[in-house]
């Protein structure tokens, strides 16, 4: 593959709290290729959102990016001046947020806010205005011509998120970061928004970074997956590999705890034992060891590093699931990707 469009190297972001320093993103490195769709998954507090905010230097106080590199087209975004990074935001890399209810300004007309995103990057007013209607059509908002004059509260949640996506796309960015874009929406609307993001990713060729805690979202949209736990990447791989053959016990537990329509009836929904670690005092050794069913002596003391466990697969684990299955009796997983042939649909899949 060609050179990645975005190279993140050893990114570290800390929050200086009253209780001490919390390292929310701890040495994260990954590549993003042109037109690719990358999922970053993890539970609340795993540092996935802060990672996304760090890329554009939008981390709120008292947080600060303290180290690493974010190379976009061979320039380090972390070294740019405030004016330079502002030019990158919204033009080269844009971001859409979790709650469309609160990410549109309630007192400004929706169309005006989309115009503004283009005006901020020097597009002439008339052109921006004309493009806004086109964008709203592109994100499939019905009656786009009249909707531009609406205030955000006159739009439904789904429409608001579509408007946010239109705003994100307004300057034809090369990277679109979507921070849990469907969490605040109801399920049918979620599916529509995901489908829209997928189509736009294919049609426009913009790379998408999808931040989510929902494995199903990743399965439907992404080609590559990063799994984060306690501020670090624990596993990275293609979507096929992650879903069919995860190597990190955390990834395995995440997949196993998903509710499934084809599960044996009356079986209790499985959860991951324990709670996410306190990042003020992260556990020694592997950060997942207190909750890991397959831990060994070494996990208590030595921190694992990301190692290659297969083609295009990295995992930070001393045991890995291959060994856990062979020696410790871990369950096999059923691949849940659409069309991957789970139990119920087996007969219909080629």
């Amino acid at each position: 593959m060609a050179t990645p469009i975005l190279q993140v190297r050893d990114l570290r972001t800390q929050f200086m709290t009253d209780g001490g320093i919390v390292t929310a993103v701890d040495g994260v490195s990954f590549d993003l290729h042109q037109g690719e769709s990358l999922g970053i998954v993890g539970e609340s507090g795993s540092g996935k959102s802060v990672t996304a905010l760090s890329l554009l230097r939008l981390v709120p106080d008292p947080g600060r990016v303290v180290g690493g590199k974010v190379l976009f087209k061979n320039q380090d975004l972390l070294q740019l001046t405030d004016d330079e990074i502002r030019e990158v935001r919204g033009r080269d890399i844009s971001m859409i947020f979790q709650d469309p209810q609160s990410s549109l300004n309630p007192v400004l007309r929706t169309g005006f806010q989309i115009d503004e995103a283009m005006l901020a990057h020097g597009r002439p007013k008339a052109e921006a205005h004309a493009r806004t209607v086109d964008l709203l059509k592109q994100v499939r908002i019905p009656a786009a011509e009249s909707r531009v004059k609406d205030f955000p509260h006159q739009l439904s949640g789904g429409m608001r998120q579509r408007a946010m996506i239109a705003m994100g796309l307004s300057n034809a960015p090369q990277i679109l970061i979507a921070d849990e874009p469907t969490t605040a929406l109801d399920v049918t609307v979620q599916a529509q928004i995901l489908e829209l993001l997928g189509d736009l990713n294919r049609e426009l060729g913009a790379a998408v970074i999808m931040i989510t805690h929902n494995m199903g979202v990743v399965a439907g949209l992404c080609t590559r997956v990063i799994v984060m736990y306690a501020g670090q990447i624990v596993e990275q791989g293609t979507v096929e590999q992650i879903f069919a053959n995860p190597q990190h016990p955390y990834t395995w537990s995440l997949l196993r705890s998903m509710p499934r329509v084809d599960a044996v009836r009356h079986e209790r929904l499985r959860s991951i034992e324990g709670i996410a670690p306190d990042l003020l005092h992260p556990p020694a050794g592997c950060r997942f060891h207190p909750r890991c069913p397959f831990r060994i002596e070494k996990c208590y003391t030595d921190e694992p590093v990301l190692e290659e466990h297969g083609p295009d697969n990295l995992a930070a684990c001393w045991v890995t699931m291959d060994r856990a299955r062979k020696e410790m009796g871990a369950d096999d997983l059923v691949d849940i990707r659409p069309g991957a042939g789970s139990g119920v649909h087996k007969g219909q899949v080629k």
Partner: protein
Amino acid sequence: MATATTTAQVSEAEILPEQQTLWSDAWRRLKRNRLALVATIYLVFLIVVALVALVYTPYRMSAVGIAPTYAPPSAAHWFGADSIGRDVLSRLMVGAQVSLIVGVGTQLLVIAVGVPIGLLAGYYRGWLDSVLTFIINVFYGIPDLLVAMIMVFLLGPSLTNIIVAIVVTRWMDMARLMRGQTMSLREREFIEAARASGAKPARILFGHIFPNALGPIIVQATFGVPAAILFEAFLSFLGVGVQPPTPSWGSMASDGISALEYAPHIVLVPSIALSLTLLAFNFLGDGLRDALDPRQKR
């Protein structure tokens, strides 16, 4: 066929949410508040009177001896005459101009000074906030009447200088309000979204935060108007306000105070006008505060 179309149109109109903005919503709620509505009508009347006084007063406001001195209210002179036989009604009408210009003028200037200071302090925080907050507190600490009197004394007692003097002693409330508003608004997600789309700080401050704080600003300014009018009346009463022959309600009351026993109307008329106006602005402010409160969805 025709009926079918009509039905379709009607049902569509019912389904689509009414095109309501924050402001039309607020206006609807304000109209339902009786006191605020009466206050609004009174203030509109006052503005009309002040405008009419530009081109017409029953008598020339500075004409001396057109009525017997201390003449009580009569058909020819509705509010009587003052100590040198000037028509009180004519002077009251011109005085309304002074009061409205002072009241509205100071608040516009207060907004122009207080809002940017509050925005900067609330948005950037840190040392800038500390410095600006310190300045605000220093201004709170100085006695306003003394400063206003010294300023008018030094600059000369023109209407503009009186307005400037009142602004100097009264801008801090607005700055403080705006600072608080900014501090809470800057944490909202749409500000983060605006930053993520590459908006410049000036755009975020004046294009995003300011319009969201407009409700509280308007309420604060509405309460500021009567305070400024009263302050001007007080200065004029003390003789350091608007200078003769231009009448101010304060100086009119001051003129009549020596004749309070046998010609009380000279004091009462401007005092009642002043009281009614202050009351009306306060009722309007109250009504606006309720009408612009987003939590109150009635």
